[in-house]
């Protein structure tokens, strides 16, 4: 008794700000946990932009006969504990019936068990690591896992004559490590010989030792799984050390960013990456999305914004089909999703991952810009 009393006293301050939000919700509450501050904020901000752009369109008409969706985006700052706190607040305080996010796979490993235990459907838009949806039956993702994208890229490289490959990856984040696992599996499956496996840290600036070693082994290709900033650093240093265009550079999902061209410039020319989405994809839905995004935010959307944009529609459609703002029904409805958005046709597998990788295209850097690889 005494202990509880102490706790309540300690939390009395928290109540002051929290109580008003405990009043009953006016609209259908959807929560999102994204990284809005800190070093990885760029991803969360892009996702938030995509979600809100979609929400504008959805709330124009409303769902369930005119009800609006209220989207609350909480910041996780990339921190596991803040992500858990945010998800708990969205569910317990704001009564969110669906959670979108969190941004990073590592955060999902912490948040997923909490939301799954509470039976709140949780949809990742950018979590590509292996094992995400195995957390539980309420965990979904609309992002294509690397295992669907990388093999397409590797096949392209093989068609260009790749027989040996050196693999490099940042070993300090789950995303890059998962990407590497997939690269290794793809190479093995295609019969491409892996001549070296080298690691680095996401914040490293010196890759000379690893690249010197790789250069001496003369591989046909170098495949790199990491976020775009270290990838740019690796590419720049590879050129300095005299690794020329005869070596095919292959990027993972992290390299699929216009920043690669901005940072590495011509050094990145010839690098190929697989992508579930491409800004210049000619279909009408995509072109409308790109135009609307530019009009609202005055910049080009990236892959993360596009994935989030589709996800918001998928969630809204599931609520509509569920017929009520009820998490259990929404979960069931989500599983039966059949949707066509900017990424192409979309459905979930029975394991709650995206069903089809048909939309994957291989892009190639040329003059600092991505285009469709020939």
């Amino acid at each position, binding site marked *: 008794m005494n*202990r509880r009393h102490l*706790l309540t006293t*300690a*939390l009395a*301050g*928290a*109540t*002051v*700000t*929290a109580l008003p939000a*405990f009043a009953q919700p006016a609209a259908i509450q959807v929560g999102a946990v994204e990284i809005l*501050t800190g070093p990885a904020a760029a991803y969360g901000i892009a996702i938030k932009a995509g979600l809100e752009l979609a929400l504008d369109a959805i709330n124009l008409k409303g769902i369930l006969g005119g009800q609006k969706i209220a989207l609350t985006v909480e*910041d996780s*700052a990339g921190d*596991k*504990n*803040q992500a*858990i*706190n945010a998800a*708990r*607040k969205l*569910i*317990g*305080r704001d009564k969110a019936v669906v959670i979108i996010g969190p941004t990073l*796979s*590592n955060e999902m*490993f*912490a948040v997923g*068990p*909490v939301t799954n235990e*509470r039976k709140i459907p949780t949809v990742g838009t950018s979590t590509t*690591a292996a*094992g995400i949806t195995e*957390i539980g039956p309420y965990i979904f993702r609309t992002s294509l896992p690397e295992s669907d994208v990388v093999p397409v890229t590797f096949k392209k490289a093989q068609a260009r004559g790749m027989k040996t490959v050196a693999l490099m990856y*940042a*070993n*300090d*984040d*789950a995303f*890059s*490590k*998962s990407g590497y696992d997939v690269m290794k599996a793809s190479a093995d499956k295609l019969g491409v010989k892996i001549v070296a496996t080298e*690691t680095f840290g996401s914040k490293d600036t010196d890759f000379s030792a690893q690249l010197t070693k790789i250069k001496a082994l003369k591989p046909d290709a170098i495949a790199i799984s990491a976020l775009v900033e270290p990838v740019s650093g690796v590419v720049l240093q590879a050129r300095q050390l005299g690794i020329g265009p005869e070596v095919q550079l292959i990027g993972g999902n992290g390299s699929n960013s216009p920043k690669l061209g901005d940072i590495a410039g011509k050094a990145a020319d010839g690098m190929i990456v697989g992508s579930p989405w491409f800004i210049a994809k000619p279909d009408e839905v995509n072109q409308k999305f790109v135009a609307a995004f530019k009009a609202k935010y005055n910049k080009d959307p990236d892959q993360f914004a596009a994935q989030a944009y589709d996800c918001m529609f998928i969630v809204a459609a599931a609520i509509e089909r569920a017929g009520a703002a009820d998490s259990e029904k929404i979960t069931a409805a989500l599983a039966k999703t059949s949707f066509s958005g900017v990424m192409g046709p979309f459905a979930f597998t029975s394991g709650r991952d995206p069903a089809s990788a048909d939309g994957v295209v291989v892009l190639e850097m040329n003059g600092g810009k991505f285009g469709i690889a020939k």
Partner: protein
Amino acid sequence: MPPWLDDFFWTYQNLVYALGVNGLLALSIYVVLAVGQLSLGQAAFMGLGAYSSAIMTLKFKLPFLLVLPASCIVPVAFALLIGGPTLRLSGVYLAIATIGLGEVLRAVYLNIDWFGGALGLSGIPERAGIGSIYGLLAAALAVLWIIGRSHIGRAMEAMRTDETAAEVMGINVPRYRLGALLASAVLAGLAGALSAHVSSFIGPNEYGFEPAVTILSFALLGGIGTPIAPVLGAWILTLLPELLRGLADFRLVFNGVIIVIAVLFLPNGILPFRLRRHGRP
């Protein structure tokens, strides 16, 4: 319990756990500061406790009652490795060696598959709770309070004030220093094990430089006159970002500024009381 209260506790459950765990971490830095030393290895010790306990639970399926005390072993071993050579030297050596420790252990977790690499360890069952966390916090507080009032507490304060004079009084300074560092490793190891068993996932990037500095700011804000002071410091610094959302972006700036202000202007923290121990029986 009415449903809204239930929701309330569910919502803030993680925060309630964090208050308890951070209280233990504040005590862990307190015991080192109380003998006039500075260790920045608290987060690293916590990580060692978290990883070793998670592995015992996940891979060896040991019961939590065994895992919890055993989670101190590895942090204590590392405290001996670092403390052995540095505690005989001037205080800056311990500080520097412990700053490095967190970064290096991160590299170790990342490079050894057994630790899950970048993916960390997930699926840790929820074995700890309010009872174990606050029970241990209360026990630690009580023990430190009693020790603080005894001749040991007197010796610790003497060392903190003037190490040379304390040694001339016959106080075995190196032994107290090592004892404090080991106690600190035990407390941080326990905190790590408890936090791992309430959050289901631990990753290699959670125990580096910044959490170490945050833990230091707990004690510097509260002061180290009594063991309760650093715990209150921890609670304030844990609750503030939740109360003032705008502060969240500047949490690190805030923690840093607290350290600067505390060292320059409030050497005794915001709770500048000390234990009475003139001790007439």
